[in-house]
């Protein structure tokens, strides 16, 4: 059953409406607070701009616009873009030193840990590159935004004007981001991030399977094998049923039997 959106909304609004709930939900105000804070900071910066630019000579208005742009750049410099939310990897970084020689009975485990450490290093490096693209986009957007303000006379500081300015700022930020995101360096950084994450997860899974076998617990690989066998039987059964239908001859059929196959993995590019 789908949850009631109105009930969700009540829960949602109660989280960021101080004093709305007698049970003290103000402690959870943080979930929506970033957006309220963002609005407040944007308003403060916009008002400073209006104060500095209204009826001022061109150089002063330009300086106010520049200052507004700088404030926005600062305000958005810590923005957590989606790829830096540990998408799909989770967990803590490995504790193994990457370059120590793997010796003795636990050699395989050591090698696995080293590969995980190396993958983690690549994840962090790719994240840094991606965050740099984000920061560069914000800087470029701030410059474009300030230049646009300097070229146009300031409006009266109404709520509508503030909202419009905010929309203009977001347009600048998205345009700058899109220019970066379509570029090859960004695409490569994102691919490095995902590919290194896949490598890290694969090694983690192998380590968990190794431990599971020691404890005689069923592993994912074993369950997968059983699933594939079951699917093969289902396909065979369905094919037999299809063959027994009188109109079967007139209908194009898929290949007769096709047990699910694992696709050989390509090695991720370093």
């Amino acid at each position, binding site marked *: 059953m789908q949850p009631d959106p*109105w009930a969700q909304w009540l829960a949602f609004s109660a989280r960021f409406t101080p004093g709305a709930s007698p049970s003290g939900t103000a402690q959870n105000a943080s979930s929506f607070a970033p*957006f309220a804070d963002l609005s407040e900071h944007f308003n403060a910066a916009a008002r400073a701009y209006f104060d500095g630019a209204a009826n001022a000579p061109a150089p002063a208005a330009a300086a106010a616009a520049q200052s507004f742009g700088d404030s926005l750049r600062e305000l958005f410099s810590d923005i957590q873009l989606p790829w830096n939310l540990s998408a799909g990897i989770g967990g803590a970084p490995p504790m193994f030193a990457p370059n120590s020689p793997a010796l003795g009975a636990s050699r395989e485990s050591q090698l696995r840990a080293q590969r995980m450490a190396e993958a983690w290093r690549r994840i962090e490096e790719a994240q840094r590159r991606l965050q740099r693209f984000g920061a560069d986009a914000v800087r470029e957007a701030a410059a474009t935004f300030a230049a646009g303000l300097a070229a146009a006379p300031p409006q009266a500081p109404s709520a509508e004007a503030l909202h419009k300015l905010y929309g203009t700022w977001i347009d600048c930020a998205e345009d700058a981001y899109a220019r970066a995101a379509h570029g090859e360096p960004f695409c490569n950084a994102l691919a490095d991030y995902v590919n290194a994450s896949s490598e890290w997860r694969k090694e983690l899974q192998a380590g968990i399977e190794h431990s599971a076998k020691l404890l005689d617990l069923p592993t994912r690989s074993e369950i997968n094998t059983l699933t594939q066998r079951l699917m093969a039987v289902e396909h065979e059964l369905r094919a037999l049923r299809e063959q027994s239908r009188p109109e079967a001859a007139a209908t194009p059929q*898929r290949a007769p039997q096709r047990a699910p196959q694992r696709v050989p993995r390509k090695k991720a590019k370093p």
Partner: protein
Amino acid sequence: MTNNSFSALAALAAATPGAAGCSEREMVRQSGKVKLYRYRPIARPSVSTPLLIVYALVNRPYMMDLQEDRSLIRGLLNEGLDVYLIDWGYPDGADRFTTLADYLDDHLAGCVAHILEAQHLDALNMLGVCQGGVLSLCFSALQPQRIKNLITMVTPVDFHSPADLLSKWARRIDIAAWVGDGNVSGDVLNQLFLSLMPFRLTQQKYVDLLAANPDRAGAENFMRVEQWIFDSPDQAGAAFREFVIWFYQENRLAQNRLEISGRKVDLRTLRVPVLNLIGKRDHLVPPAASLALKGLVGSRDYTALEFDLGHIGMYISARAQHEVPASIAKWLAAR
């Protein structure tokens, strides 16, 4: 801006919940997690052939019938169409080896066969939405005798069009390694979708919400869409891997190189009437990715309609409610 919103939200918090408006329907077939629904008619029939809606595997199909005044399905019912919808369900670990061929030959073909048998017909009308449009094109090319008219909506065909950011990102990723032997998390896919326009989708829409000072109806609208956006099923690993590699990375459909389970999917064999509905401001499926269909299908009866809407706006915007169902019904009625 925020003071107004705080007071509005405090007032909203004191209100009582309301019921969601969805069209009445009946489940007429179930196979595993996949369900086929038939919607109860609400107007005099205008087209005798039933319309099967094939939604995408990513995201849930209730976006087509979100609430009474934001429902493509309700619009189609108002136009007198007999509407069916496939709900693919939420794949879990047992579905990790389910392939595109399974979706096409077992699930989609099973639903089509059920409708044709129940209504004593040889062919039906099909409406494929987004990725569901790709599945519809493949099915129609493989089994053209079962399709009377085909409608594609915000459907990518050329996956290498210049504005397709998702495709540019996907082409460099080792998909086989990413999927492994498991499913693909819907949450991770959501992060990817948010990354396409991060400032708008993770910042502006919430600030705009505060600024809009929504009433109860506005708040409910927002929350329904928000719920839908993040109600993302995990993707069956094998089908996802095939879809990304064959379509996003290798662009096989547009290059006439696609084979599914040993059968060639040649869009030139598709000679039934085709209606292609496109969102001019679609950031997920750029218009050029959909418009390419014209040069690929064998049909002489091809119509493309472009709407000044985004991807989601094609289903739920006020303009879509007025324009899209009427356009579909008019086109079908003429055939």
